[in-house]
C-alpha cells in the first residue's frame, strides 16, 4: 500500500477522458476500475475524488451522462465523450506528451552529469 499515489491535479480529467475514448460509454465504477488497473493499482479512487471530477467534465461539456442498464442488469449512469471532449482530449494529450518529454529529457541529462 506504501506505493499508493495521490492523483496529480489535472491528470484525473485526462485519465477519465482517455478511458471513455478507449472503452466507450462507461459508468463511474467502470471508469474507476479501469484507471486503477491501468495504474497497476497505484491509484485508488474514492468516490469523493471521482464523482466531482465527472460532474465537472459534464459541466464543461466534455462528457454527457445518461442512465442505462449495466452488463448484469443494474441501473447505472453511463458517461460518454462528446465532440468537445474528444477535441479536448487530443489537445490535452498533446500537451502532456510534450511536457512529459521535456521533463524526462531534463531528468535524463541530469543523470548523465558526473
Amino acid at each position, binding site marked *: 500500500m506504501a506505493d499508493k499515489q495521490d492523483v496529480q491535479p489535472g491528470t484525473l480529467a485526462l485519465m477519465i477522458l482517455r478511458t471513455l475514448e478507449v472503452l466507450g460509454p462507461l*459508468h*463511474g*465504477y467502470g471508469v*474507476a*476500475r479501469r484507471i486503477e488497473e491501468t495504474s497497476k493499482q497505484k491509484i*485508488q479512487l*474514492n*468516490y*469523493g*475524488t*471521482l*464523482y*466531482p471530477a465527472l*460532474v*465537472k467534465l*459534464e*459541466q*464543461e*461539456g*466534455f462528457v454527457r451522462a445518461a442512465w442505462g442498464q*449495466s452488463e*448484469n442488469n*443494474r*441501473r*447505472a*449512469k453511463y458517461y460518454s465523450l462528446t465532440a*468537445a471532449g474528444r477535441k479536448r482530449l487530443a489537445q490535452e494529450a498533446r500537451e502532456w506528451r510534450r511536457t512529459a518529454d521535456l521533463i524526462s529529457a531534463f531528468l535524463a541529462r541530469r543523470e548523465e552529469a558526473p
Partner: protein
Amino acid sequence: MSYLRLGLARLRGLFAGTREDQDLREELESHLEMETAELIRRGMDPETARRQARIASGGVTQAAEAVREQRGLPWIENAVADLRYGIRSLRRNPGFTAVVVITLALGIGATTAIFSVVRGVLLKPLPHRDGDRLVYLRQSTDALGGENMLFSVPEIRDLRSGAPAFTYIAEYSPWDAVLRGEADVATVQVGLVTGNFFDVMGLSPVVGRLTRASDDGPGVPPVTVLTHEFWIRRFGADSSIVGRQLLMNGQSVTVIGVLQPAPLFPDQVDCFTNMVFSEHHLSATMVEGRTHRMTELIGRLKPSATLAEARTEITTVHERLKRQYPDAYDPGSNYRISVIPFKQAIGQRAQLTLWLLIGVAGFILVISAANVTSLTLMRGVRRGHELVVRTALGAASGRLRRLLLVENLLLALIGAALGLVIAVGGLELLVRLVARYSPRAAEIQLDRTVLGFTLGLSVAIALLLSFAASLPRDDAEGVLVSAGANRHTGTPGKQRLQRGLVVAQIAVSVVLLAGAGLLTRTMMELSAVNTGLRTEEVLTIPVPFRATDSTAEAAAKQRLGEMADGIRALPGVVDVGIGSEVPLTTSLLNLELKVEGKPLSAGQAIPRAEGRNADPHYFRAAGIPLLQGREFTTADRTGSGQVAIINQALADILCPGESPIDRRIAWTGDVLRFAPVNGEWRTVVGVVGNTHDGGLDAAPPAVMYMPFAQEFNYAGGLAVRADSNVSALAGAATRIVRELAPGIPIEKVMTVAQIKEQSVTPRRLNAVLVWSFGVLALIIAAVGIAGVLAFSVSMRINEIGVRMSLGAAPGQVQRMILGEGGVLLGIGLVMGLLGALLSARAIQGLLFGVAPYDPATFGAVAVIMAVIGIGACWIPALRASRVDPVITLRAQ
C-alpha cells in the same frame, strides 16, 4: 468558453434541488453495489464484501458533499448555510449573544461617536477653497497673558511688504455692536475685516457679495456681511436682505451679502463689517501706534510657496523690526511670530480634549474587544467537543473557521448596529462639549466615512475573534475524540491573559469612576457655594447704557430711577436697587487704591479693587449683608462729601485687623486719566459681605462701592428682590425696562439661581461625560469578571462534582468561586485606586472644593466597584454550587 459554460452550469447547480441529490445518491449506491458484487464474485462473503466496498469508497456522504460543492457555487451555499447555522447557534445561546452584543455595542458606540467628533473637528478638510493654503499668524511673548498679542497696524504693513510667499494677508478684529431692529435691540458680535478677508479665506456668498478692496479705507460707506447662522436666526433666511440698512451702534450699515456656512475663526461672530464701521480702527492711535495691537492676521500662501518659506520670511521681517524698534519689543519677553496652518489653529483648543477622548474611547474598545475575545475563547473551549466531532465527521478546518467567522461577523454587525444607536445618542452630548472648544462642532455628523469606519471596525473585530479561537488540528482529532473532548481545556497561558484583562478592566473602571466621582463632588461643592447674597429670590437686569457724555449719563440715571419705580410697583416685589453693574457679574472697572496715612512699604503690592456704584436700595435688594457702618442714603449725592462702602475682602487687604470705618481711601494710578472716576479721597462709611462676582469657583473680588448719585454711570443694572418666585417677575420687569430704554439691548435677565447654574453647567457636562465612560467600563468589567469565573467554573465542573460528592457544601463551593473572583477584584481595585490617585492630579484644574485624593469619593468608588464586582461573581458562583455531583461524575 468552457469557463462560461462551467459558470452557468454551477449557477444552475446552485438552484438544483433534491432531484439531483437523489440522482447522485442512486449513482453512488449503484457504484457501491457493483463493487460489492465484484468482491463477492471473487469469493468474499457478502458481509465483508459490503464493508470492504464501503471503506474503499471513502465515504458516500463525503463524496455527495464534494459533488455538491462541485455542482453549485459552494461558497454561496456555504455562506447561506453558515449564516443559517450561525443565527441558530446564537439564538441557542441568548445569554452569550446578548452579553457579547452589548459589550461590542458599548465599545463600538463610544469609538464611533468620538471618531465622528474627531473627524468633524480635526480631520475633515476645511470648507474653505484650498483650505490647506491658509495660515494663521500669531505673535506671542513669554509674559503672562502673552500667548496671543495680536498685531498693530504698522506691524501688519511691515509684514505684508516683507513676505512675498503670501498672496494676501487679511486683517480681523473682534468688536461688538448694538443692533437696533424694528421691534427689539440686541448685542451682536462683529468681525471687522479688510476687503480681502473673504478672498483669503476662500469663502463664497450665499446671497449678494462679500467685502472687496473697495470697501477698505476711510470715507467708504459701512457695509456688512451676515454669517449664515445669523441670517437664519435673525432674518429667517430672507434672501431680499441684500441692500437693507441695519442700524448698528447708531450707524446705518448696508447688508451686502450672506456668507456660506463655515466655521468662524477666531470668533463666533454674527456678521462682518469693513473697518470703517469702527472709528477707532482708523484713528491715529490705531494706525500709528506700533504697540497698539488689536488685529489678528490670516494669510493665504501662494500656490508655489511652502509653509517653511513663509515662516522664514515672517521671522526675517520680525527680527528686523525687533532691532529697529526696541521700545516696542521688550527683549526680555521674547517676541515671536508663529505661522500656523489654519486647520491646526482652528482645532487647537479642542485638540487636547479630543485626543484624551480618543484615548478613553480606544481603551473602552480594547477592553470590550478583550472581553468578547475571552468570552468567545471560553465558548470556543466549551464548543471544543462539538468542533472535534465535526472535524472527525469530515468538516474541513477551513470550513469551521469560516463558520466561526460568519458567527462573529453576525455578532459584530449586530453590535455595531446597536453601537450606532448609542453613538447617535451620545453624539449630542459630545457636540455640546466640543462646541465650547471648536467652531467646527456643527460639522460633526455620522456620515458615510464614519459609517465606513464603524463597519471596518466591526469586521476587524470579527476577524480577530475568529482567529483567536483555536480549532482542533486536523491530525489531532483522533486523540481528542478518544480522550473525551470535554476534558479539553484552555491552556493556562490563555487563562492568565484573560485574568490579566479582567484586572485591567477593573482598574480602568475604578480610575474612570473616581474621576467621575471627583467631578460630581466638584459640581455639588460648586452648587453649595454661598454667592454672598442672603437670598436666591433676586432678579438681575443689566441695562448697558454706555453713556459717554454727561447729558446722556444724566438721562440714563433718570431712566434707571424710573425703571426701579416701575418695577417696585409690581406685585410681590420687595425692593429694587440700582447699580453700575448687577451683582454676581464682574465690573469693567478694576483700579489701584491707596489708603490715607498708610503708605505702602517697599515691595508691597499695590492693592486693587473693582469699582461699582450702588444706590441706597442696592444692598438690601441684592441681599448683600451689611457687616459694619451704614448703607448709602439719599443724603450721599452730588455735592455731599465723597463716601464709599467696601466689601470684607477689600477691608482685609486695606486694614487687616482693624476697622476701616472712617478711613479715607482713593483710586490711584495713571489709568485714572481714562477712567470715569476721580482720584479724590473717599470716606469709608460701611463694610458689606463678599460676593462671588467672578463665578462660583473664583475667589470673591475686592470691591469698592460708590454712591450711585455721586458717580458717573458708564453702565447700569437693576437688582430686583421678591418675597418668592422671583423668576415669575422676569417678563413684567423686562417689559418695563425695555419700554423705558428702547435703544438698549436687555438680554441677560437672570435670577441668582440661573447665574449660579452658569458656573455649574460646564462642570456638569464634564461629569456626565466621564460618568458615561465610567459606567461603560464598569459594565464591561462586570461582564469580564463574570465571564472569566463562569469559564473557570465550567472547566472545574468535574472537580466541583468530586468535591461535592466528598461532602463539600454548596456554600463552600460558592465561597471558593467567590474567592477566585475576589482576588481579581482586589488586585484590580488596588491598581485602580493607585491609578486614580495619579490621574486625579491631572484633572486637578477641573476640580473645585474637593481634594484630588478625596477619601470619601475614593471610598465610595471602591464600594461601588466591589459591590458590582461581587455581584458579577455571584452568578457563576451560584451556578457552581448547583452542580449536581451525580450528573457530573456520570458524564465521565
